[in-house]
């Protein structure tokens, strides 16, 4: 079973990410039987079907897909994943903050794709609480990335008060 980092620990992951294969359409793709994290187009095309299964639903957004697309559906999701196709593609950081800070999403928010140790600190600050570290990397070692910094200047999801409001003179 795949292992991920969740809430600061390494845990087994029960979810399956659905990716549309070449030629597959959102309407035709076979859904995993349970614990499916479906791409946004599948969610949009088969919302009723997914909800009626009575199973926890996960959705994943690619880096160009904004949180606006699911903002009205958040109550249906146990898990939202945000894909980082390349780790230098930083759009997912904004997506995460918007989901947490603007739309009030409180479920699991998972970083998937090119997820590496040195991004984890930023991801955590932006509201991610789960990280599917790239499969070829040592996940135990990556865990250290969450502890690189003990303090931060800015307001963000993990610490809504900027340092200047917390500093003692």
């Amino acid at each position, binding site marked *: 079973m795949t292992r991920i980092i969740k809430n600061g620990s390494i845990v087994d992951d029960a979810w399956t990410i659905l990716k549309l294969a070449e030629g597959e359409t959102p309407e035709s793709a076979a859904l995993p039987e349970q614990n499916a994290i479906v791409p946004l187009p599948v969610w949009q095309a088969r919302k009723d079907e997914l909800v009626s299964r009575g199973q926890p639903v996960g959705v994943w957004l690619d880096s160009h897909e*904004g949180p606006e697309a699911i903002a009205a559906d958040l109550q249906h999701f146990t898990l939202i994943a945000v894909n980082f196709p390349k*780790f*230098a*593609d*930083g*759009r997912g*950081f*904004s997506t995460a*903050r918007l989901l947490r*800070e*603007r739309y009030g999403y409180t479920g699991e928010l998972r970083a998937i794709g090119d997820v*590496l140790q*040195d*991004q984890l*600190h*930023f*991801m955590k*600050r*932006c509201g991610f609480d789960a990280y599917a570290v790239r499969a070829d*990397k*040592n996940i135990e*070692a990556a865990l*250290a990335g969450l502890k*690189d*910094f*003990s*303090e*931060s*200047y*800015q*307001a*963000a999801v993990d610490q*809504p*008060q*900027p*340092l*200047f*409001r917390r*500093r003692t*003179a």
Partner: protein
Amino acid sequence: MYRYDSIDRQIVNERVAQYRSQILRNLNGTLSDDELKPLRLQNGLYIQRHGPMLRIAIPYGLLSAGQLRKLADISRRYDRSYGHFTTRQNMQLNWPKFEETPEILGELATVEMHAIQTSGNCIRNITTDKFAGVAPDELTDPRPYCEILRQWSTFHPEFAFLPRKFKIAVNAATEDRAVIRTHDVGLELVRAESGEIGVRVFAGGGMGRTPVIGKVVRDFLPRKHLLTYLDALIRVYNRYGRRDNLYKARIKILVNALGVEEFARQVEEEWTFLKDGPATLTDAEFARVAAHFTPPPYEPLPDNDPSFATAQAENKAFAAWAKRSVHPHRIPGYAAVTLSLKAPGSPPGDISDTQMEAVADLADRFSFGELRVTHEQNVVLADVRQRDLFEVWGIARAHGLATANIGLLTDMICCPGGDLCSLANARSVPIALAVQEKFDNLDYLHDLGEISLNISGCMNSCGHHHVANIGVLGVDKNNEEWYQITVGGQQGNAATIGKVIGPSFSAEEVPDVVEALVSVYLEQRTPEERFIDTFQRLGIEPFKERAYRGRDRRKPAASEEGAAHD
């Protein structure tokens, strides 16, 4: 200047530890070169033509004498005993060893310095007016704003992987000396009719391949909203800036594509969600940071020190230097002094370890222990008593720091170019040296008056050639170095992008072309006109005509080229 508290210190120390781990993981094979690249760039480490280059951050150009001594020490122990000041007011070391860079960062941390975000697709070093805090035409000291921005931008979690680099400059004076209109975001501090201080926000300026003058996206932003507004602005860029093409990824492309009104509207819309949130700045925070920039203990002095006038009358060389290097100060009896790093035969912006120590000593003795690095790649002592100027000049001269050419033709901005930089298409330093050699007569230079000549070795425009009266851009044509000349650019409030005069020139031709261009000015100028004024009155044609007069372009036909390389 700003002094770290225990939290600032801890953050920088943790950064050193993180970087050390990244370099170790790369050396032991668990972090690939490609994966390390954006991480090391965010710590200022480039891999260049001959090896690594480390760019050290000098926040808004401000250094203490002790910090400069540490830089001298580092340059001696880890490099070749010199450093190079850049147009972002930073320092580059050109010959560090890759595996020693964590040690260098550790050394820097001991003097409250670092290399954080001096490269990479993130918010870069904040730059400002070299005369911040002492300029007579200043509305308010911009440095507290710069420091607040430095802290906000340091490891900003949302903006560490932007589409492209992001540069912010702050100006608080009547005359813009920070080139804010060629920045991704330019901030001009302004006062509303009510007396409230706020910010006029420019966005979408930039040099590079597509030079653009920034446009106003908000005319007045109360200062407490500075960070929430910038969060909104950069979020719009982070989400919608292009990521498919490196050359179209800067914010200027997004602003142009949307139109400035639509871009501003999107920023405002985003901002409505952030405005008045926790990141809204407090007066207490302004006061806390501003307390680090209180004026030094100035002596009460008369407006003009008679000894300064006497020394100028008696010593022609001193008078020439004073004319170019001594600048007005808001405090009576004081002056700001520019030490020239543009001595003949020396690459512009380079400073040796002994010069660094000499400057540190000068700062300690004559300028309250602080100095500034300018974006024109010189050094400023901001608080010198007029009566000390003659002595400062004598010491500076002994160290090759008193060339009387500030603001003149040989005060060139110049990037390291093809000798060192792997991005460069052509060398730039030899061009600068050749121009210096040709124009070595100070009387002639003084007669020529204010004129800017900037040189970039490639389209990235580190040498700011776009905003020079005469710009030189290195281009590669079939593996040969050629130089494109632009005329009519300028920095300041009326920032203008120079116009290309035509086909490019060989390296040998450049000094002669420069001479041809200035000869048009010398023949046509009115007594009041600077080069740029004459250019604006006459237009490009006479300059173009003179530059190409009698010149064979020697542009080889494509077929000949192909044959030559087979």
